[in-house]
Structure formats: structure tokens, C-alpha cells
């Protein structure tokens, strides 16, 4: 490349080719290199897959997994058709019964079929977001409080340090039992299984947020605190005008960490507790032990990865939007 650009003497075209060169370089860097990486990975994957014999047949290669993506989508389409037929039959049945039994209050019941892979993705997303938002609602005020007060911080710190490394799987049985004991409405607003997963997620992604918020708040520059003192801001105003804006970068770093934890925790919790979602999908397929099972699990693994990545990117964008200190953001 360089030799060809050197041979051109005119300054204008020199510049142009330099621009070209840059563009070309960045194209290589951002497109060609990652693409090669993925290709090499796919090749390695399909080569190794050929050589792994499990009792359920060969380990699925990229082609088998791709095929299962198609099959899963078709299953989803078929399920939608069945659901439509189900509602149709139900309306006819309701009408018939109303004719015979005028006192009857017809009701449209939800489709009783099994959730498809795509339904499970949405269930998992909703659960993780609910658990995460609940954690945000608890962790940020708590983090600010501990960040502002040294006494409170030293009181709460041991508890945080002990609970932080606890795996979700340890929490799960406790959460399940407590939820079944306390949540006993006959016509529940949300399912128990949803609450179980959600609370487990909350418990596990609470800590990184509390710690980061607290560190962010405690580390506010003394100049800013002094300004607040001079202006005699009320405690509420102090938090609103000084503390929050100053610690936003750290808070968002904590949130991003937490969301990553939340997503990982959720899959494990769903798997263990048989709560609806992608984790349950993986476990069900493992139990089925059919010849497609491994390819389907691999498909789920890829989807889990892609969603985890997208969630992280979304948080990053949010962080960029909300934060004044662009230097604090790392990719």
C-alpha cells in the first residue's frame, strides 16, 4: 500500500489516497479482522465438533445449530397458528354455552400451549429487567446513604462484603420457600415462579451497585462539597444538586456491572428452579435427550450471549448519555 501511495507526487491525490488508506485501514480493523476471527472460530468449532462423540450423537457444529434456529422459529409460527385456532374454538364454545346457560359470564382464557423459544426469550428479558430495576431502586438510595455517612458505611459494609460473593443458587431455595409462604393470593397478579427468579436476580445484582454508588458518592471532590456548604443547601438539595450529578459516572458503572451479573444469575436461577425462561429451555432440552437437543442448547447459548452483549451495549449508551465524565467510560 505504502509504495503505491509514495509514487504519486501531486499533493491533492496524496491526501486523497491517505484518506483512502485510513478508510481502508479502519475497514480492515473493524470489519475484516473481526470477521476473520469469527470465521476461524466457526471453522475450529465445526472441526472439533466432528470429533466429539457424545451419547446423544456428534457435538453440533455451526450448520446443525443454524438448522435448529430455523426449526425453533417454525415451531414458534406453528404455535401461533395453534393459539389462533384455540381462541376461535373458545369463542364458539363460549357462545354455545351462553345460549344454553344465559347466566354464564364468558371469559377469554389465555392460550394454554407451551411457550416457544421466542416466548422464553421475552420472559427472560422481562424477568431480568424487573429484577434489575428493583435492585436499582434499592441499591442507589442505599449507596448514596452509605456514601454520605461514614458511620452507616462501616455499619453496612460487613453485610455487603459477606453477601456479595454469594451465588444465586444458594439464595434460590430460601427465596422459593419465602415466596410460597408469603405470596398466597388466590388470584395472583404475577406468577410465583416469576417472583422467585426476579428476587434472586435482585439479591445478586444489588451489591455491585451499592458499592459503586457508595464509592462514587464518598469520592466527590471536596471543592464541590464546600460549595454546597457555602450555599447552605438543605440535605435534599445537596443530594440533588451536588451528589447525584457528581457520582453519576460511578453509579452507571455499577449498574452496567450489575446488569451483566443479573443476566448470568437469571439463566442459572431459571435452570435450577424450573422457572419459565431461557434457562428452563436449556434444562428441558437437556432432559429430553433427543438427537437435536445439543444443537438446540447451543442455539440457546448463542442467543443468551447475544442478548447479554446487547444489554451491555444498551447500558453503555445510557451511561454515555447520562454521564458528564466521558473518560470514566470504558468499553
Amino acid at each position, binding site marked *: 500500500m505504502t509504495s503505491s501511495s509514495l509514487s504519486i507526487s501531486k499533493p491533492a491525490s496524496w491526501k486523497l489516497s491517505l484518506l483512502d488508506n485510513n478508510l481502508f485501514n479502519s475497514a480492515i480493523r473493524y470489519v475484516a479482522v473481526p470477521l476473520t476471527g469469527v470465521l476461524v472460530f466457526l471453522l475450529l468449532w465445526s472441526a472439533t465438533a466432528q470429533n466429539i462423540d457424545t*451419547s*446423544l450423537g456428534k457435538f453440533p457444529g455451526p450448520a446443525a445449530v443454524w438448522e435448529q434456529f430455523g426449526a425453533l422459529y417454525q415451531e414458534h409460527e406453528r404455535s401461533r397458528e395453534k393459539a389462533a385456532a384455540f381462541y376461535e*374454538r*373458545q369463542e364458539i*364454545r363460549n357462545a354455545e*354455552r351462553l345460549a344454553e*346457560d344465559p347466566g*354464564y359470564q364468558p*371469559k377469554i*382464557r389465555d392460550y*394454554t*400451549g*407451551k411457550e416457544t423459544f421466542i416466548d422464553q426469550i421475552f420472559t427472560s428479558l422481562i424477568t431480568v429487567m424487573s429484577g434489575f430495576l428493583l435492585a436499582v431502586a434499592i441499591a442507589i438510595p442505599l449507596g448514596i446513604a452509605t456514601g454520605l455517612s461514614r458511620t452507616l458505611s462501616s455499619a453496612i459494609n460487613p453485610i455487603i462484603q459477606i453477601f456479595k460473593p454469594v451465588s444465586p443458587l444458594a439464595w434460590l431455595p430460601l427465596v422459593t420457600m419465602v415466596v*410460597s409462604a408469603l405470596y398466597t393470593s388466590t388470584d395472583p397478579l404475577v406468577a*410465583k415462579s416469576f417472583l422467585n427468579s426476579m428476587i434472586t436476580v435482585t439479591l445478586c445484582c444489588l451489591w455491585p451497585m451499592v458499592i459503586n454508588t457508595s464509592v462514587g458518592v464518598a469520592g466527590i471532590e471536596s471543592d464541590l462539597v464546600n460549595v454546597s456548604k457555602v450555599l447552605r443547601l438543605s440535605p435534599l438539595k445537596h443530594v440533588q444538586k451536588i451528589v447525584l450529578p457528581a457520582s453519576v459516572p460511578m453509579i452507571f458503572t455499577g449498574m452496567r456491572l450489575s446488569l451483566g451479573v443479573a443476566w448470568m444469575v437469571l439463566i442459572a436461577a431459571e435452570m435450577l428452579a*424450573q422457572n419459565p425462561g431461557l434457562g428452563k429451555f436449556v434444562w*428441558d*432440552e437437556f*432432559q*429430553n*435427550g*433427543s*438427537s437435536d*437437543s445439543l444443537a*438446540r442448547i447451543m442455539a440457546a447459548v448463542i442467543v443468551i450471549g447475544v442478548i447479554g452483549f446487547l444489554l451491555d451495549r444498551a447500558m453503555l449508551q445510557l451511561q454515555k448519555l447520562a454521564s458528564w465524565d466521558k473518560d470514566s467510560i470504558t468499553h
Partner: protein
Amino acid sequence: MKWTQLFRRAAITVGLASTLGLATPATSAELGYPEKEELTFGFIKLTDMAPIAIAYEKGFFEDEGLYVTIEAQANWKVLLDGVIDGRLDGAHMLAGQPIAATMGFGTKAEIITPFSMDLNGNGITVSNEIWEQMKPNIPKMDNGLPVHPIKADALKPVVEKYKAAGKPFNMGMVFPVSTHNYELRYWLAAGGIHPGYYAPHKGDISGQIDADALLSVTPPPQMPATLEAGTIYGYCVGEPWNQQAVFKGIGVPVVTDYEIWKDNPEKVFGITKTFAEKYPNTAIRITRALIRAAMWLDENNNANRPEAVKILSRSNYVGADYEVIANSMTGTFEYEKGDKREVPDFNVFFRYHATYPYYSDAIWYLTQMRRWGQISEDKSDDWYKEMAAKVYRPDIYRAAAESLIKDKLASADQFPDFSSEDGYREPQTHFIDGIVYNGQKPNEYIGKFPIGLKAGQKL
């Protein structure tokens, strides 16, 4: 005598439920609309859950005005707890589960069954390593294939060898009160291998006292993986998990429960007593749908089985490959790879009055619970009969069957003669050890076994 008792109960049930206080027996009343329309049923991934899947897929539940959601459960304990705490309205259960729950062995709860789901359907599989050691002890036919049924006598020297070497001989079954536990025990004991006693009054519920072979619990779908890992040397489980071992090449089924006890009752459909009392019409309508499904499964000499297998192989039901499920469901059973034999009655869903909840079936399970110490003390014959009548509810079955006959969806000759049926089968002879079972005389039956607790014996 049984019938007067039965009618009284039915009358009380209906009387309680109806605010009008019309104490007519459920059997003669016009069947009303279901009180509860949205139901959730649990199941374990086994082919004998088929009646539930078929009742759903063929619209039999919807015909009754029932909107049913069907959910696979992780293991039998989770399933039972689900029914007890109301998360599930009903479930595909091991015959021993409602009995043990009512009796208070394990979790205490009053669970009843109006519908017996199938006959036979289980097998005992051993790992390839054990099979190689058993093989020399098994007589061969002219074509070189082993003579079936294979008795545990062939396994005994192997177990003794392991015992002498100080290695525990571990085997898997699916639940302490499962059919599989009793079948595996029956087979082992018939071959002189002691499967161990339970002593719940001393807090010992491992069931390994005096045992030659140590039995422990593994959920059905995980059996093949556990065998492959070498944690257990063999297991007793329902289909498709024996055929799965053949397909995966990790083990060999040695005997089916059809050979241990021909036409033995297997799963039941369990609901809580409270549910049946609170929603009597719903209970009858569920039974109606399940009877129709069972009839469909056995219709025209198993003509619908391939379609049923296709449904079961979907991932939301059993989910194993079509070929694996089809092996046993369509009337054949593959022992060693390539040694496929005809077992037309391997899975029976309706023939031979398979769905009728016989008291004598319940009593057989009770006798085995006593034999292995799960019932730690002697009980009178009457106690056995009362317990069976508490759990098995032919009154609900009868109401359902008679209303099906009335609606021309079934004919009377497909069912036992309800006016004379007392709920006890004729003495049954087809056991692998030749011991005859008469449900009327449980204590006499328990006394016949060489291995097992006898009258008056307490650990």
C-alpha cells in the same frame, strides 16, 4: 358392603358441594358445568403421561369445557409438592404417591385418584459392564439369544463379587414409593438379592438396612446420564429411558415389568381430596377426558400409537427421539442392541380395564410398603382395605364412565360391570416368582415372601 360405604361418601361429597343440599349421589345426577375451568396439570417426561397429552391435543379437555396447561416437572417430589400446595391441580403420579401421602409416609396430604393411567411400561436396565458379567449365567436359546424373562439369579453372583470386593452395588430407582422401587425390589428379592429395609420409625428412610444392592433415587430423565457416569450399575425406570440406554449404547435392559408382574398397574392421575370435594363436576369431567384419551390410545389394536408417539416426541412432552419412544409404544421392546422382541402389551392404556382404579391395586402397593418396612408395624386386613378406599375412588370413575355411555361416547361393555364390581381383581398369578396375589388377604400375601418383613416383625 363396599358399595354402601362408597355411596355414602359420594352423597356426602355432593351434599357438601351443592348449596341446594340436594344429596343425590354423583352417579345419577345430570353432569353440570365444570366449577373450575382453568387447570394446570404436571407430568414427568415418561411415555405413560400419554393420556394427558392426548386429552389435550385431541381436544378432549376442551370438549369438557376445561382449559388445561400441561407442565413438565423436574422430579416426583416437586410434582407431588405442586399438587399439595395447589400450584398444580392434578398430575401424572406414581401409584404409590397418593397412597403414601394419605398414609403420611413422606409429606402428609390427602390425595385421591379417580383414574389409573396405564399398565406395565417399565424396565430394568444394567450397564454394559454388568451385563457382560451377567451373560454367562443366563441360559441361551437355539439362536444364541438369552432366554427371557431374565431372573435376578443371574445378577446375584455379580452382586456377591462386588460385595466381596467391598464395592457398593448401587442401583437407581425414581422415588421411594415408586412402582419402580417395588418392582426393582421384587425382581432382586425374587433372585435372592436383598434390596434393603426402611425403618421410618427410627428416622431411617434410606431403605438400605441389610441391603445387598443399594437403591437410591434419581429422576427418570437423568437415569441414562447417571448410569453413563458410573454412579449406578443399573436402574428401574419407565420408558423411554430404558430404550434410550440401548440407543446410546450405554446399557442393556434385562427385564420389563410386564415379565415381573404381567399387567401391573403403573401410573395414576392424582388430585387432592379437597379439589374433588370443591369441584366435583370438574373432577368427573377430567376423568371423562382422560378415559377418552386412553380409549383413543388403544383403539383398533394400537392403530393410533404412531400418531401418539409423534405427539410425545415434541419437546414440550417427552421430547426424546421418535424412534426411541416408538420402540416400546408400538408394541416392541429392544433388549440388547438388535434383540428386538414383540411385547404388544408393553404399554396398555385402556384394555383389560386398565383405567379403572381397583382397590386391589392400591393394596398391592401397601403390601410392598409393609414388606420393605415403609409401613413399620403390622396392620389388619381391614386397615389395608380402608386405606385403599380412601385413596382410590371408583365412584368418580363410575360417574364419568356412565356419563360417557349416556353421551354415546363409549359403550358399557368397555367398562367393568359397575353394578357388580367390588373393586378387587381375581387372585393374580403372573408374577416372576410364581407367588399368587389376592387383594382380599394382604397379610397372608406378605407372609409368602422369603425376603421381606413378616407379621409381627419390626426393625
